[in-house]
Structure formats: structure tokens, C-alpha cells
């Protein structure tokens, strides 16, 4: 069903010219966000890294692997993989799946 090839009317060069500056800016935003965490007043150790920040770092590897469907795979990696409905006590959504079994940081 998917038809990813040649479905955008822009040429490669046109797409780069149109979108490069916008996404350059977004990448620098992410870098500055990580720098900001380094300057946080309580100087929390990386071993206690928030699961959302860890999830962002993990997702970044998808951008570098040269494979297609990057947006879909980033979203899947941030998603809760479980299948059963939860009880009312579950915490609110945070934007990144928090598996308690995944919390041990090397």
C-alpha cells in the first residue's frame, strides 16, 4: 500500500532548500536542551537519567541508521508495547514509554 518513492513532487535539491534551515534549527534545539540539563541546579547524575531523556537518546540512533520509515520507528520506540488495558492507577502519559524493568542504567 505504501508508495514512498517519488511521491513528493519536490526534487531532492528543492526539498533541502525548503526545509534545511528549519530542521537545522530543530537539531540545535535538541542539543541546547541536553546542554541545559547539564546545567540544571541539582546536577543530577547521568545514572539517574530521566526515562524520557534516555528514550530521546535511544531514538536518535534511528536517525543515523540509514534505514527508511524513521518517523514511524521513532514513534514505535517511544510507545508502550504492552497489549492489555490498564488499571486506573497507571501514571499519566509522559511522551516516552517507561518500563520499570528497563530502568537499570549501565
Amino acid at each position: 500500500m505504501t508508495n514512498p518513492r517519488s511521491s513528493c513532487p519536490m526534487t531532492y535539491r528543492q526539498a533541502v532548500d525548503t526545509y534545511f534551515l528549519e530542521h537545522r534549527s530543530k537539531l540545535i534545539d535538541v542539543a541546547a536542551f541536553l546542554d541545559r540539563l547539564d546545567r540544571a541546579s541539582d546536577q543530577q547524575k547521568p545514572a539517574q537519567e530521566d526515562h524520557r531523556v534516555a528514550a530521546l537518546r535511544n531514538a536518535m540512533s534511528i536517525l543515523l541508521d540509514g534505514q527508511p520509515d524513521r518517523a514511524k520507528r521513532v514513534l514505535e520506540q517511544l510507545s508502550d508495547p504492552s497489549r492489555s488495558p490498564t488499571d486506573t492507577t497507571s501514571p499519566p502519559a509522559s511522551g516516552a514509554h517507561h518500563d520499570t524493568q528497563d530502568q537499570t542504567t549501565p
Partner: protein
Amino acid sequence: MNYIDPHIHMVSRTTDDYQRMAMAGCVAVTEPAFWAGFDRVSPQGFDGYFRQLTEFEPSRAAAHGIDHYCWLCINPKEAQDLTLAREVIGMIPAFLDRPNVLGIGEIGLNKNTKNELIILEEQIALAQRHDQLILVHTPHLEDKLKGTRLILDAIRRNGSIDPARVLIDHAEEHTVGMILDAGHWAGMTLYPDSKCTPQRAVDIIETYSHHRLVMNSAGDWGHSDPLSVPQARMEMARRGHNRDTITDATLRNPAAFLGQCDKFQLQTSLD
């Protein structure tokens, strides 16, 4: 160029928004019943809300040449209270014959809880009994993938729902494929800082090139933009998509889904 916004909460928007949308080419909106940002304290609160959706908003829209349609339900967030939810479900049939009611929505899941799923199944059954179209809300963040799967399973379990009469909203790159594969329509919600940007929605249209894809603003009381559908049209034009493709995505596709309900009569041409 004319367009339809098939998911927008006009009760939370100003009359100036209606005016701007009309100037941008909006010819029709459909407004699902949703969570108002606070929990209503009684079923009577929903009675007033349903009357607002079926009496007051249509006249406010008509003053700007926009056709207003709506969807009724108990929203997933307030469905956690089973007693309240069932009282509200009991009130809905009395409203279904009103001229601007297209179906049941936006039902679905919010936190993927057992109670939400029970009420979702009961409202799918309500739609089936009354032969109504269905509009579905999916969760917003890391719970969207799981919620979408649970919703698709619940519709399938009912066994009597024509999948082409169901629009599943807030689809993103990781859920749109499974929604289309199940035979449903997929809606992409254009939000400034969650869900889809206009750019990503157009990426999805380019990737799937499917007639069962629509876009909406889901404009509401939070950060949202009631003009995001025309923004997506501009994005399509900027990339060089032709006028026909843009009209399909923002006018003919939603009109085809909504037109499955006889009450949906567009006063304008589909060109």
C-alpha cells in the same frame, strides 16, 4: 479553495475563528463531543452540551456560511466513571434524529483503561444498533500505539460494524497503516506541538496516497490552530501537488466519508 474541517471543537472557539475559517475557504465543520477541560458533575451537563452542539453551534456557523455537523457520545476521559457514562449513553438516542447529528463520537480510549474499554464497546454497540457513523479518538503519546490496537480489536470484536463507516482520528506514522489496513478511514490531527504537523501529515499522504485519509485541526481549548487545514493545503501546494490532489485531501475525501450519512449535504461543489 473550499475545504472541510472534519474534527474541530467550535464550542471552545470564538466567532472570530468562524469568520477566519470562512475566509480561508471552510464550507463545513464536524464537531465531536469531547472533554471540556474539566469533568462535568452530572448527566445534566451533557444534556446542555448536546443541545449546544445541535442547536446553538449550527446557527453560529451558519452566520458565516459554514455547515455545522456534530457527533455525540460520552468522551473517553469521562468514561472512567461507569455510572455517569451509562447515564449519558442512555440520553444519546433522543438526540440522534436531530438534523446535524452524523453519528457517535469521539469515542475511543484516553489512558487505555479497562473502564474506558468497557464504555467504548458499549458505544460501538450503540452506533451499531442505531446504524450510525463512528468517529474515534486515539490517545496522544506513548499510549497511542497500544490504544489504537485495542480500539481496532474492539471494533472487530463487535462483528457488525462496516469498517468503512469508522474514522479513526489522531493517526500518526506508526498507526496510520494499521488503521487503513483494517478498512477504516484515518484522520490526521494538525497540532502545533503534539500529534502531526502539517508537514508530517502531507508526508503521510505522500507515503500512503490513499483516499481514506483526511486532515483536521481538532481545534479546541488548548494549543491548537483552527486554520491548520488550510495550512496543510499551502504545504501541499508549496511542494508542487496539483489542485486536484489538494482538493481530494481536504474536501472530497472528508465529503466521501461524511456523505455516508444522508444528513450530510454539502451546499457547495466538490471542485
